[in-house]
Structure formats: structure tokens, C-alpha cells
């Protein structure tokens, strides 16, 4: 699982970035990259990068579940926007611009939060541990990323067909259908 050496093929061209990137400013950022035989998770800090690699042969499952993050952000931003709006209304003259200007930015943030779609959490599971994919926090880019990753893993391991599962485990009760996480990409 060695990285391509410099001079033969640039390491940067050996990886393809997956959709989704999380930036936490001073705390660093997270990104995911598809390699030839492994998934690379990069945690970028101000002066260093940390890498975690997941061999496609070892990935057992990918899990995606909805979270309430979007609703929480909307509630907080909405509350702040409301306060600033009320302050702007209560103020008179040029003083009203003091709360109004940040209020506009808060409203923009609220709109962006809503337009980005449902929030989610993703995990990749191997035989020894389960890792949170921190850069996949919105359902739309997460689905795209997982679809690309699924292609690579299935190209390595093959598909796990449901017919085979039925033959092996058949008889267990089917779970209830849950509410959808959001529209499929391209829908």
C-alpha cells in the first residue's frame, strides 16, 4: 500500500478528492481522497497533516444516518437573527445599522444552512474499528462520495448481493422503512 514515489508519478495525481470538505479554521480541516487501493482521510492542521488509510479490501461497511445539525444551526441562527432584527427595529436612525448589518450576514448564513440540505453523519467500518468521516456532514455530497467509494470497494471485493444474504441469513424480520434522508443526487 505504498504511496507512489516522487519522480515517477506525483502523489497528488494518484488521489482523487471526494465531495465534502470540513474546515474548522484553527482546529484544521478534514477531507477524503480516493487512492488506487485505499481511501485516504486527511486531517489538515495549521502546520501538519495526519493521514488515515483504509484499504478497500478491509472496508466492511459504510453507514449514513441523519442528524439534527441543520435544525440546530437553523434554530441558533434564527434566534440570533431575530434578536438582531428586533434590535434594529427598536433602534432609530443610523444606530439601526449596527445590529442590522450583522443581521443580514446571519440571515445569509441561515439561508446557506438551509440550502445545503439535510445534515448527516457517515462512518466507515473495518474489522478493527469504525471511523467517522467528518467531512461528510451533508446528505447530498455524502451520497455522491459514498457512491464513488462504493464503486472502488466493489471493484476490489465484489458486490454483496441481497440474494446471497437471504440464503445465508434468511428468516430475520425486515426492519421498518425509515424516512428518507433526502433526495438522491441528480433527482
Amino acid at each position, binding site marked *: *500500500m*505504498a*504511496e507512489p*514515489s*516522487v519522480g515517477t508519478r*506525483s*502523489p*497528488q495525481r494518484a*488521489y482523487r*478528492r471526494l465531495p465534502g470538505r470540513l474546515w474548522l479554521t484553527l482546529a484544521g480541516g478534514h*477531507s477524503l*481522497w480516493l487512492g488506487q487501493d485505499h481511501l*485516504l482521510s*486527511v486531517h*489538515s*492542521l*495549521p*502546520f*501538519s*497533516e*495526519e*493521514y*488515515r*488509510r483504509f484499504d478497500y479490501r*478491509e*472496508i*466492511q*461497511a*459504510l*453507514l*449514513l*444516518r*441523519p442528524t439534527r445539525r441543520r435544525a440546530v444551526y437553523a434554530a441558533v441562527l434564527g434566534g440570533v437573527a431575530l434578536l438582531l432584527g428586533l434590535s434594529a427595529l427598536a433602534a432609530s436612525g443610523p444606530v439601526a445599522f449596527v445590529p442590522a448589518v450583522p443581521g443580514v450576514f446571519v440571515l445569509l448564513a441561515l439561508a446557506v444552512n438551509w440550502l445545503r440540505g439535510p445534515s448527516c*453523519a457517515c*462512518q466507515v*467500518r*473495518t*474489522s478493527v474499528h*469504525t471511523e467517522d468521516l467528518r467531512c461528510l456532514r451533508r446528505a447530498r455530497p455524502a451520497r455522491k462520495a*459514498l457512491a464513488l467509494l*462504493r464503486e472502488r*470497494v466493489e471493484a476490489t*471485493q465484489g*458486490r*454483496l448481493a*441481497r440474494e446471497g*444474504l*437471504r440464503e*445465508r*441469513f434468511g428468516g*430475520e*424480520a*425486515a*426492519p*421498518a*422503512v*425509515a*424516512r*428518507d*434522508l433526502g433526495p438522491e443526487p441528480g433527482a
Partner: protein
Amino acid sequence: MTGGLLPCPSCGAALPWTAWNAGGASACPSCRRPVEVIAFPALLRGPEESRPGEILLAADQASCFFHPGKAAALACEGCGRFLCSLCDLSLGDEHLCAACLEAGRGVAAGTRPAPGRTLWDGVALSLAVFPLALWFVTFATAPAAVYLGIRHWNDARRSPVPRTRLRNVLAILIGSAQLAGWAAALYTWLT
């Protein structure tokens, strides 16, 4: 039974096989929270057979450095210490002990993927910019910024994450400007 193979990420209860690759989210039978599962054949593969190491039977038999009661199976290619099969960490054709693997020793150390990397271009740029708040410190930090910017000129291309040399360039330019300023100040003071 699929119990224990794939736990729910919310509550830890086992997810039934009918939730795997279902094409959409399914409700966990325990917490009822939706979860979408994409499962692969590796999930059904059993754990690898462990090798506990052979017990030492004869007093004159070579023993493991870390387990004196177990027979040595081979020598570490990083340090030469004898290892039992439990201590042997094989990476392809190479066999190392845990200490050598952690220290990055061994024949193939140069090609082994690194767990991380220091971003010296970021360090150089920070040394060039942040000390401007205390300008007199730049007498020491400016040469360091220029040195690091030049010394690690090619580091950006070795990162798997695309990275340009912009930080190196800025560090060298800003550091050089600071050095030029100090040179001018010293010249003025001396003449």
C-alpha cells in the same frame, strides 16, 4: 444470524441483514432511528486466525526477545531481535517488531506510507508573518523563514493533498524583505 456483525451507529444494537444494501434508509429495530448501510463482502469474512507463538520447549532453543517463554520464529529486519510469531508484524515481504515499525525502521521504510507530515511551508510563512507584530523578533525569524522556504521547496509536491508552493514563495519574499530592511537599518546605523 447477523447479530453483532454490524451495530447501529446510534444505539449499538445489531442491524439485521435486511437493512444492508437496502437502497435507502432503514429503521434500527432497537432505537428506530434511520440508518443507511452499504455492506461489502469483507463483512462476512471471519477474523484472521491469530498466531499465539510456540512455547519454548528446549533450553538451548532461541527465544523471542519480548516473550522469553516462546520460541523465536524469525529475526526482525529492522533491529535483528528474535521474534515469535505473535510479535512478528509482516508488511508484505518484510518482518518487523512493533518498536521498529513505530520508529519507521526497516528496508522498505522509505516507501511505507507515512502517518502524517509536517507542513514546513506553513511554518515558514508563519515565521515570516506573525513576528511582524513584534518587529524586533524578525531579526531572528526572517532568516529562519527564508531558510525553511528554500529548504522545503519541494515538500508541497510530496503531499497527497494538492498543494502549491505559494506559501514557500511568500515566506521567502516576506522574509527577504525583512532581511533587507534589517540590512538597511544596520547600514544606516553604522554609517
